[in-house]
């Protein structure tokens, strides 16, 4: 009696699983390289689509240091009324030094203020022509870290405003708050963009795979006739989707890096005007991996959707 295939040396369940996945990967790559131009176009389109939200993410990461710096040590400036007497000044100084919420007090006299203004603005002697110094005396306070949150600092600000001789009080916590609000907004915009453009990527990949399946219809028929199961037939297409996602996200990463390199000099120049040094950062390794993961997920889902059609 004839022998049957069951007498052959077969893979175990697990090795067969990996073997078939490896083959599917190979088939998927072979199909991509069979039409390299269209494959690259699809990947570039995916890359461009993902680059927009990714770019916003990078922008957010680059602004993190701003709010980060402001969160830690809040500064409060007290502008005094013009013509405050020396007595009042001493009294104020004493009160400020006693306040537990205040870590450090720096006094900037109107003359110092004028000097600094002249240095930065380069008006030259124009300011000296003024009869009276228009710059008020200022106390710059560093708030103790435990009082630096926006909730804690508000009572301090109103307390300071009520002191005699004080014109107005400015706390940079306001700026921190505004900046935070802006960043929250940008963060929401980024999430919305990721959702929107992620959906676009899903549609692109699903459509591409759908077309590919049309192109391989004959081959699929043959595979069915020789006993290939649904999974065996679908697996290469799933991997095609995964590869589109992978290469697409790598393109997105590349585009953003190029953009960052392109913008770095002009950003450095701009920041230099504010006497700060700052180098624009590209996609962080962690963010890049997340991007790739997300994109691969979208690719897998896209090809899966194309099969459900």
């Amino acid at each position: 009696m004839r022998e049957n295939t069951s007498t052959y040396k077969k893979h175990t369940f697990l090795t067969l699983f990996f073997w078939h996945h490896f083959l599917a990967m190979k088939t998927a790559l072979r199909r991509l390289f069979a039409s390299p131009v269209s494959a690259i176009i699809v990947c570039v389109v995916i890359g461009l689509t993902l680059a927009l939200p990714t770019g916003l993410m990078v922008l957010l990461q680059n602004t993190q240091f701003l709010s980060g710096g402001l969160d830690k040590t809040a500064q409060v400036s007290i502008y005094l009324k013009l013509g405050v007497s020396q007595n009042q000044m001493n009294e104020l100084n004493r009160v400020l030094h006693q306040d537990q919420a205040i870590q450090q007090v720096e006094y900037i006299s109107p003359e110092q203020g004028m000097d600094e203004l002249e240095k930065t603005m380069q008006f030259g002697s124009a300011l000296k022509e003024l009869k009276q110094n228009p710059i008020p005396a200022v106390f710059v306070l560093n708030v103790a870290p435990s009082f630096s949150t926006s909730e804690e600092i508000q009572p301090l600000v109103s307390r300071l405003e009520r002191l005699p001789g004080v014109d107005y009080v400015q706390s940079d916590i306001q700026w921190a708050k505004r900046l935070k609000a802006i960043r929250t907004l940008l963060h929401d915009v980024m999430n919305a963009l990721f959702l929107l453009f992620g959906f676009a990527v899903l549609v692109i990949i699903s459509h591409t795979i759908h077309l590919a399946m049309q192109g391989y219809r004959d081959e699929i028929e043959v595979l069915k006739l020789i006993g290939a199961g649904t999974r065996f037939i679908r697996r290469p297409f799933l991997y095609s989707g995964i590869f589109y996602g992978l290469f697409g996200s790598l393109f997105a990463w590349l585009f953003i890096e190029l953009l960052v390199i392109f913008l770095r000099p002009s950003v450095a120049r701009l920041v230099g005007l504010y006497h700060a040094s700052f180098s624009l950062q590209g996609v962080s390794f962690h963010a890049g991996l997340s991007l790739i993961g997300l994109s691969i997920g979208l690719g897998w889902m896209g090809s899966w959707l194309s099969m459900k059609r």
Partner: protein
Amino acid sequence: MIHLSNVTKRYSGKRDALSEITLHIDTGEMVFLTGHSGAGKSTLLKLIAAIEKPSTGEVIVNGQNIHRLKQHAVPRLRRQIGLIFQTPYLLRKQTVFENVALPLVIEGLRHKEITSRTHAVLGQVGLLDLAKAFPDALSCGEQQRVGIARAIVTKPFLLLADEPTGNLDPGLAEQMIRLFECFNQMGMTTLIASHNLALLRQFKRRTLTLDAGRLCGDEKQ
């Protein structure tokens, strides 16, 4: 092995492609199926290979009722049946070797086993030299033999051939049937459909004749 009882198959048209077919084929038999074009030969083979389902009646292949076969069980049955068509439906982008090895890959054999088994079968059909060639570079007869090699590489219990000699000249056609006789001797039940009665007459085998969907002859010779 194959058992059909009162099988009728109707596609969308008014006429039944097959009507009230009852027949039995034993394990190890070699049977010819003949009849005019449109008589229903292909349809009968498709029912046995679970490509189509009968409208009424029962088709039982190797103890399995085709009508009740679950969708996921079809590939398993197909792997136990060697299918051969008039055009061999090869994958053009894969080599002869890869085409023939494909059923074994699907079956999940080990790499070494696949290589030795595929080479053995290519030897049987006389195509060892062309293992690395692509199908487009082959003649009709060679392509047909690749298709046959792919069908028998898993050592199926049943071989179904639909007009396997349709594209071949008479000499090659006869050789082809002799090849099927070899496989049959190795233990594969074989059912060959062909409208070429003159060719089939040369081999003294059981011959089923279809006419307009009806079984009108079952001669044992």
